[in-house]
């Protein structure tokens, strides 16, 4: 069967994203990638925790003074909501509603862009107004590496999903693009999983001191 076979809502398989061998392989592949990413994030998390508030003698910036909760709260809400919107996209994929998938994936990208904008604003505030640059201390380096690695994942996810939307704008759903959308949504949920730990460990526990 050709991957570009046209479907109707009635002939659309229940698990279209796993209906082909390629889809099954993509599913297990994205998960194995995520497992290696878990290890990557564990290493930068552990580095951050061991270097928190550490730096040259007489260092005047600590996590408790630096971090604010307002921005972190808004960023958390944006990213959590974008996780739900990608679930909506997958719901429309099950119902063979190509437009629904594109619209909800588009909303996911917009929320992700909002998150990214706030993160860039936050980094700008810290480096320019607080004098907390990357080379300020061991604490600042480990903070930027941890949160920046997550930010890089967000950028990659945004480029990925935007590319999927543009390329599949007129194609309609088929067994070629269903696994692609599904893998992107799994990746996007993982970004949210990492952020849950970042806002808890970096921001909430940072404010506690």
């Amino acid at each position: 069967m050709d991957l570009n076979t046209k479907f109707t809502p009635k002939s659309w398989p229940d698990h279209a994203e796993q209906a082909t061998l390629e889809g099954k392989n993509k599913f297990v592949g994205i998960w194995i990638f995520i497992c290696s990413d878990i290890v990557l994030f564990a290493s930068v998390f552990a580095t951050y925790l061991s270097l928190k508030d550490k730096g040259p003698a007489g260092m005047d910036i600590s996590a408790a003074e630096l971090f604010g909760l307002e921005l972190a709260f808004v960023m958390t809400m944006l990213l959590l909501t974008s996780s739900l919107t990608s679930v909506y996209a997958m719901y429309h994929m099950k119902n063979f509603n190509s437009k629904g998938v594109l619209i909800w994936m588009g909303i996911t990208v917009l929320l992700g862009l909002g998150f990214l904008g706030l993160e860039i604003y936050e980094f700008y505030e810290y480096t320019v107004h607080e004098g907390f640059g990357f080379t300020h201390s061991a604490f600042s380096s480990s903070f930027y590496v941890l949160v920046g690695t997550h930010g890089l994942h967000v950028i990659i996810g945004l480029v990925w999903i935007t590319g999927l939307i543009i390329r599949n704008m007129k194609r309609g759903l088929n067994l070629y693009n269903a696994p692609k959308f599904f893998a992107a949504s799994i990746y996007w949920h993982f970004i949210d999983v990492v952020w849950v730990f970042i806002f808890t460990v970096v921001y909430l526990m940072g404010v506690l001191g």
Partner: protein
Amino acid sequence: MGHDTHVQEKSVAQYEFNRKKNAVEMRKQVVNFAIMILFTFIAFAVVVADFSPYFIKPVILLLAGVQVALQLYAFMHMGEKKAPFIGVINTFVWLGAVIAFTFFLCFLTIIWW
């Protein structure tokens, strides 16, 4: 690559049943999302409310753990037994968790010994 795919036209009853089932599942996902938002609120609230750090730290870590479990098992379908290679996936995730735990154990104990 579509050689192993068997496509079958559904009956009207089956089609309508599936649509209803999908809608019910989506409603459950919205409930899961509401729980996550609620937990996020609680986590920020206990920090703002200025309780003792010995109370706050375990509570917010526990809330984060539940949120992550919801993401993995509800949104990312890690608990779906019929998904392909789900055993492989679970093995890798738990192995990743074990390695992650080793990192924390190592970095938080021996670095500033």
